[in-house]
């Protein structure tokens, strides 16, 4: 049925556009963080409205397609996946906005040693890359790429796991960095959640393409 195909193609394009938008939000927030650029941070906060609007539109379009076409098989899985990925992306957008708000509220740029010991920058880079990879996997229907995302979450988990100890040690020597350390801790928690969201997105992509449910499975995610 050509009508259904057309609608699904349009929906896919909308999803990809939202992906690009959220990606740019996350990247911009990273740049704002790196260069302590409050203007850039404010841009991110303003653009958050568009992310929300996009989420609403995709939700509505999915509802219409379900109601009008009653899709089955791969089309049904595609719609279910898009519905969930939609809310995952929206949450990542929220996180990017949250990080941008921290930058706006922070009083001074972050100390260099703090940045290095916390390993926040490599973590951030990895988080952005993971999201970009999920987008590529979705667009190209590449399940191998989707699966590769799972392993990369390990780095994020490691940084998140170690940060408490790392900051404890650091603050013993330099207690004046406490305020900043708290910001950094929050941002790292947020980034860990971005990693989780990307992992969920990857699971949905594999569900849509292979009809395999990898949610809540802790073994054999190769």
């Amino acid at each position: 049925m050509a009508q259904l195909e057309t609608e699904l193609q349009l929906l896919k394009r909308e999803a990809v556009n939202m992906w690009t938008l959220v990606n740019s939000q996350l990247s911009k927030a990273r740049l704002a963080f790196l260069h302590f650029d409050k203007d850039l941070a404010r841009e991110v906060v303003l653009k958050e409205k568009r992310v929300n609007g996009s989420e609403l539109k995709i939700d509505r379009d999915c509802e219409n397609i379900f109601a009008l076409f009653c899709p089955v098989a791969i089309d049904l899985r595609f719609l279910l996946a898009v519905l969930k990925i939609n809310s995952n992306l929206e949450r990542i957008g929220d996180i990017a906005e949250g990080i941008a708000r921290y930058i706006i509220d922070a009083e001074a740029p972050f100390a260099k040693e703090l940045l290095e010991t916390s390993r926040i920058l490599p973590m951030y880079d990895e988080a952005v890359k993971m999201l970009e990879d999920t987008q590529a996997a979705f667009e190209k229907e590449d399940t191998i790429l989707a699966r590769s995302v799972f392993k990369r979450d390990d780095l994020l988990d490691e940084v998140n796991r170690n940060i408490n100890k790392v900051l404890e040690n650091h603050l013993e020597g330099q207690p004046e960095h406490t305020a900043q350390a708290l910001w950094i801790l929050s941002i790292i928690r947020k980034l860990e959640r971005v990693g989780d969201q990307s992992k969920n997105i990857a699971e949905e992509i594999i569900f849509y393409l292979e009809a395999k449910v990898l949610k809540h499975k802790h073994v054999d995610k190769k």
Partner: protein
Amino acid sequence: MESTIIKSRKFNASFGANHVVKNVNIDIPRNNVIAVMGPSGCGKTTYLRCINRMHELIPDATCNGTMSINDEDIYKMHPIFVRLKIGMVFQRPNPFPNLSIYDNVIAGYKLNGIKLAKAEKDRIVEHSLTKVALWNEVKDSLLKKGTFLSGGQQQRLCIARAVAMEPEVLLFDEPTSALDPISTATVEELFHELKANYTLIIVTHNMQQAARVSDRTAFFYMGELVEYDLTKNVFTNPKDNRTQNYITGRFS
């Protein structure tokens, strides 16, 4: 703003004492596909047949109210002129069994005694068959009888026959209920293409079909027009409870 082509005001139809269509008010916009659905006996087919005045061919059939095309009262025009502007396709494919495919397409001209030059006839046949995606399948066997085609092809032939008369509106009375799923899908594709040049009004039992192909849906229940809205709205959030019960499969 879409212009309205068919308008009904306070339209009623009966078979003798049996009042089957009650007080229908509807505006049908040009170049749209309108689905008319409802349970058996709700009056949807009767209403459709009133649009091109086929209803009055049944003995004891009466109707009153206004039905107009382009603001011209259909019941003040001669029925023949009405039917030249409003074509109809029926539930069971009914090509004329004694005519070839070629003759079937131009039957509306030929059997009405309208003389056309051969070149003009050829053009109409090719144009109409192309419009229904049948030209490539039958162009080498135009002189064969129409009844040797498959069900789906016969139905498309009937659509070509209606289209050849260059009407403004095409009425379909459950056009795919006698066809297999693949033929049904082919005919549904056609609706989408035909709406560029015609206004289509389709009576269907099949809710999914109504949802798939139409821009607006009218829901009839016990002779009344219960709801008439964009198809999207009718199927995601109908305003009337009766509509919701019907489309979710819960009756009473």
